């Protein structure tokens, strides 16, 4: 399992369009991905869970990844939240 606090640098935060892009990027990875926001933990591979939380630009979220490809998954998530989505 790997854990990291990641700063969200996506302009305007994880709103409808980037949330959908995020899901598309991480679904191919096998690892389980959890976002911890305060006391709340969500399955970050579920679009409905992502819709249920507000992830803002400038916010730091704890990302917990567990699985065979956890390092690559975390790298992908970090790159996404740096705003490098293309």
């Amino acid at each position, binding site marked *: 399992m790997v854990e990291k606090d990641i700063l969200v640098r996506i302009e305007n935060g994880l709103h*409808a*369009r980037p*949330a*959908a892009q995020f*899901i*598309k990027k991480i*679904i191919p990875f096998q690892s389980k991905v959890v976002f911890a926001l305060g006391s*709340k933990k969500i399955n970050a591979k579920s*679009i*409905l869970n992502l*819709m*249920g*939380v*507000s992830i803002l630009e400038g916010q730091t979220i704890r990302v917990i990844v567990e699985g065979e490809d956890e390092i690559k998954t975390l790298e992908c998530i970090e790159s996404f939240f740096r705003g490098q989505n293309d």
Partner: protein
Amino acid sequence: MKNNNVSILLISHCYEIVSGLKNLLNQVQPDVNIAISGGIHDEIGTNAFDIKNALESVYTSNGVVILFDLGSALINAELAVEMFGGNKKIIFADAPLVEGAYAAVVESGLGNTVEEVANAAESAKQLQKISD
């Protein structure tokens, strides 16, 4: 047709509602075919023939998930599906229109089945929009 994803049909009593929603969904996921049917000749309402035409325009063997706004739209939508013919992969999602359609378009874009897309839309009913 854009691809092999499940298509989505949005039905409302008001054309502008589904037209605007389609714009939103196209921005979220451009790879999913979306058809709309809303209003009758610039008035509020739904029309079975218009719904059938919209359904035909996006139907593929991967299926279509239908979302609608208010209950009476379902009556015309069911009639439209009946006119379109049997043994088709068409599922009505009992879901809030905006949140359900958003969840559906994301799931469809992932290449999921018509049942999975409909389930995602229906799960949006449980969504808590304001955190405790």
